[in-house]
């Protein structure tokens, strides 16, 4: 509360004083490093909650940071928040963009103002020179891993209900891409391909509609755990068995703890990991930049796995569940 405001006012004036001395000397006095973090709303999903927690735990005063957070699921509000951070004169802008497009000019402003930008979690559609680094998941790879796993199941036929995330998000594009390829090349049949917008309720309705229509299907490929959960609720209602050795294969993403438990219980078949813990990487990069080192790799891809219900262990659940 109030102590916070006091300290920020102090650093604010300090920043203007030292500004004339030049760029590198900022915060050289051992002051806190000011970071502005723009994230999606943490109650969007379990993934996001974990991600936000991770950021909060890392960028603390104890670790030498003064962090301001701005949350929004709307791209334009995020852009506005970024501009405000630029005016506030933060040292670093950490960004998980709601939309891939529309960021060029803000990032240019940041660059002009000597603010360094690090992307996390989501890539954006902008020139590489505009940011220092990006720590992201390779969504296409996640999708590919999942599709490869599905192929390895050697089903006699693949009739898939494909539940997509919000159209245009990096996660949706990556995870959809792999399945689209497989549908084109491996004869996978997409019974329906609909966006449920990460929303379990919508997923439930879409699957319900397919069940009502009586179209046969044997795979549910949901681009996150929430939607898989919604789909399963519809299956349960209609007496369609699912899970290991049952009628319908259920696949999800994100590795929520509860999802992995479903996996372990054999109710679901596959869950693809999407690693939300990027904070330590970012911390490392900032430390390097502060020491004047250069960053060797501009893009850091998070290490991610896929879990199979038949091989998952309790340890996996505990270690990887978020």
């Amino acid at each position, binding site marked *: 509360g109030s102590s916070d405001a006091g300290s920020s006012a102090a650093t*604010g004036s300090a920043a203007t004083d030292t*500004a004339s*001395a030049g*760029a590198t000397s900022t915060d050289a006095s051992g002051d806190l490093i000011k970071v502005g973090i723009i994230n999606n709303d943490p109650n969007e999903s379990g993934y996001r909650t974990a991600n936000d927690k991770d950021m909060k735990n890392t960028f603390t005063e104890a670790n030498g940071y003064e962090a301001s*957070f701005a949350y929004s699921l*709307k791209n334009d509000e995020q852009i506005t928040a970024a501009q405000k951070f630029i*005016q*506030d004169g933060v040292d670093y802008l950490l960004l998980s963009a709601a939309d891939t497009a529309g960021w060029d*000019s803000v990032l240019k402003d940041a660059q002009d103002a000597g603010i360094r930008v690090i992307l996390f979690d989501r890539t954006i559609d902008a020139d590489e020179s505009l940011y220092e680094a990006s720590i992201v998941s390779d969504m296409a790879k996640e999708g590919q891993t999942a599709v490869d796993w599905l192929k390895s199941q050697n089903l006699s036929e693949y009739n898939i209900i494909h539940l997509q995330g919000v159209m245009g998000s990096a996660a949706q594009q990556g995870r959809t891409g792999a399945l689209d390829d497989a549908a084109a090349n491996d004869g996978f049949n997409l019974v329906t391909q609909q966006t449920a917008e990460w929303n379990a309720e919508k997923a439930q309705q879409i699957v319900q509609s397919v069940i009502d229509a009586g179209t046969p299907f044997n795979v549910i490929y949901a681009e996150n755990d929430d939607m898989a959960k919604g789909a399963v609720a519809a299956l349960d209602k209609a007496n369609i068995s699912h899970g290991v050795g049952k009628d319908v294969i259920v696949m999800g993403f994100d590795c929520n703890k509860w999802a992995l438990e479903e996996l372990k219980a054999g109710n679901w078949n596959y869950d693809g990991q999407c690693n939300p813990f990027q904070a330590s990487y970012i911390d490392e990069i900032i430390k390097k930049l502060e020491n004047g080192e250069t960053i060797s790799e501009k893009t850091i891809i998070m290490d991610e796995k896929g879990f199979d219900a038949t091989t998952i262990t309790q340890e996996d659940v505990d270690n990887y569940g978020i």
Partner: protein
Amino acid sequence: MGKKLKNMTDTNLLLTITIVVFFAMYIGAIVFQGKGFLKPQTFFNILNANAALIILSCGMSLVMITGGIDISVGGVVALVSMSCAVYLDFGGGNVFISMLIAVAIGLAFGIVQGFLVAYLDIQPFIVTLAGMFFARGMTTIVNTKPFNVANENFTALKETRVFVPGMGSVNKLGNYVNAYVEIGVIVALMVVIVMFVMLRWTKMGRSFYAVGGNNQSALMLGINVKRTKFLSHLLCGLLAGIGGYVYFLHVGSGSASHATGMEMNAIASSIIGGTMLTGGVGNIIGTFFGVLSLSTIQNIVSSAGLDQAWWTGITIAAMLCLFLVVQSVVIARKKKMLQK
């Protein structure tokens, strides 16, 4: 003071409240948060980010003054952005024609909705709700994926900055940066002026108020009520088209998720600026300050460094609540005084 209050029309009273509260809030932000709020560019960024909203809110106020509502404007913005983006990158790529497309889309919505509301007497809420659904759906039909526009002429226009003479600040690197606004802001200010003059000084403008005040009376006073309602929706649609292009110019991309909930912001801004949903009362200058107030609230909250995400929503709502309650209390006092 009391006497002055008594003699003020509702419209002017509400306008005064808005302006006073806005300045109080901004000065409060400077005092308590310092930092960026001292820099002129912070203010101009609020303008830059909200140029489109200002234009939309002008249209919204107009419809609300006539006693209607238009919740399709956010959807129209998304549709305009996406259509123009697709046209610029995959179609002809002529910037001028893309502007025409924007205006045409806005007008089309305005005309159809205006016709349904005015001549078929369907409730504006339903018509424009359907309009919103339609625009949102069409946007994904035009193109599902968001993408940045690469067209060079467009990017040049988008990057154009109008420097504000005599204003600026020293940035982190120690360079003096002149404060600037984007082209959209100029357009928005022009819209505000034109709309203000239209509503305040022309016969047409006053007939919007008359229809909103009491459309039965307006009819008997010899005003063409249907045409007036139609015009209000038409203009609102047109402004949504223009606002859509300004928004597009600001973000430079097309996306189905653009401008989600923008209609609510436009309605809120209009009301904060003293426009009544019940019609007949309102002022464009108020609307302008309504937009600024709303976005200043958001700005204050976003730079306050709240430690939990949920505080953002709750704080914005609390400030909005405070604002509305103050407004309502002042109006109630005025009513009391009038009775005496």
